[in-house]
């Protein structure tokens, strides 16, 4: 059975099914409101430059939009069981792993569409305000290195973990985890992952590649550490998908 064609087919149709959901647009617009509020507050200063605006746009996009992405992706795998589609899918010759990768990629790509559109609205505002065409290239670079790895990280776990957790429970735990692991300020003296490379909001990449300090962290990372943080986040998301695949194979063998 041709794995690329199964993966491609799953990617295509999972994309279609996800992009058609009105709820993903609603959830992402709502979560972007927090980003917009913080962003506008930070660039309201007249001395703020286009570079600052782009950097804060990327930073605050990375803070909240992955939460929205994780929430709307949490039901993608569990849905097959809920709709009883899993019974016929299990009789198909195509590889389960290929389908799972296709599902992850397709539904994540669809979820990225509103994220990118919202981000582009911010970039459009910056272009209109500062008239600096170089902002476009910087906006692209910052998007790829700062919010995108975090979104892929959130997506991987959101597709995978509901295999063992009920979707609403996962969603609640995920939101709690996100704020604890990524946005816990040191001033609260609560141990968290915020200062580690597991911080999925991109502070390592932000400081390493663009030398732009994160709001409440001082990391001083090297470029290699910036690269390592991105690889770690994306790698963990694929590991989560692999773990889900192994679990599903084990569950199948037990039936």
């Amino acid at each position: 059975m041709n794995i690329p064609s199964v993966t491609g087919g799953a990617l295509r149709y999972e994309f279609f099914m996800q992009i058609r959901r009105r709820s993903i647009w609603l959830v992402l617009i709502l979560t972007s409101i927090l980003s917009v509020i913080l962003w506008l507050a930070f660039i309201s200063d007249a001395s703020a430059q286009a570079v600052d605006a782009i950097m804060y746009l990327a930073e605050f996009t990375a803070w909240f939009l992955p939460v929205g992405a994780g929430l709307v992706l949490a039901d993608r795998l569990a849905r097959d069981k809920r709709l009883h589609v899993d019974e016929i899918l299990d009789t198909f010759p195509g590889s389960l792993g290929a389908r799972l990768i296709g599902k992850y990629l397709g539904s994540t790509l669809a979820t990225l569409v509103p994220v990118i559109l919202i981000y582009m609205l911010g970039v459009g505002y910056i272009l209109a305000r500062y008239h600096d065409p170089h902002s476009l290239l910087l906006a692209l670079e910052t998007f790829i290195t700062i919010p995108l790895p975090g979104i892929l990280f959130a997506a991987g776990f959101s597709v995978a973990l509901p295999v063992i957790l009920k979707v609403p429970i996962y969603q609640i735990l995920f939101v709690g985890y996100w704020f604890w692991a990524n946005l816990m300020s040191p001033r609260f003296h609560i141990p968290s992952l915020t200062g580690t490379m597991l911080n999925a909001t991109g502070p390592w990449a932000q400081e390493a590649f663009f030398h732009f300090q994160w709001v409440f962290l001082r990391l001083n990372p090297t470029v290699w550490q910036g690269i390592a943080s991105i690889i770690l986040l994306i790698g963990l998301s694929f590991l989560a998908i692999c773990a889900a695949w192994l679990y599903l194979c084990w569950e199948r063998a037990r039936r």
Partner: protein
Amino acid sequence: MHIKIDNLSKTYRGNVHALNSLSLIIPQGMFGLLGPNGAGKTTLMRILAGILHPSSGTLHVGQYSGTSEKGRAVIKQILGYLPQELGMYPDLSAYEFLDYVGLLKGLKDRTLRQQRVEQLLEMVALSNVARRKIKTFSGGMKRRLGIAQAIINDPQLLIVDEPTAGLDPEERIRFRNLLTDLGGNRTVLLSTHIVEDIAQTCQNIAVMKSGQVIFQGTVAQMLQATNGKVWLITTSGPRPEGNFTIVSALNMGANVQYRVVGNLSPRAGAVPTEPGLEDGYVWLMHTHQPQPVGIQTR
């Protein structure tokens, strides 16, 4: 392609014996599997489809073993399955759903796949609603789409589990005719508790009860076994009692005519009559007790 099942058992957690040393040979063509709810029909279907693993016993689909991972993988390539509870993605159209299934079943060539999808939609009379979302479909339309997805890869083995449950009579007839057209060179295993579905489509049948096969043969053989066991009792008095099962009661005004199946002692008003398949089924259920089951271990 025929299917050979030898001493197949399936025990679920909690020591629930769904199948008890079941042995069966399913020849090519239309084959009916009858049995009451809980007889083990769906468990057997799921084992044949590779969704469940048996606790013990062997199963061969043609030359392929259905109890090994490798064999199951090969069987899935020649299999079409329509489950009892059919799930589909409601936001896809009929065309999109079939196209997706075609991709997952290995129909890589886009042009050929599209032609196949259009051909199937025509066959199941859904061409005019091909672009409508599945969530707008009636139960009968979903069933027809279900059979289309099952045969998109032109399978040699088609397993259909309770396909007409919940359908109105017209839809049921349409579906039966569709299934009959699909017989031919493939093995079609039709599992149902609706006797009429079997009577209209299958020559070879098996009857299951409590995880075992209590009859395997042709419809004619089953009817022959029921000869002399079916009676019409017309009475104006109380419901007749005895060692028999009342299959139907027809109110004729002053009298009620009861159709009964069983061993009848001579009585007034009892007239022997030709058995039908439903009578044969009732007679089997009445007379056959399942064999006692020991503790099953893997």
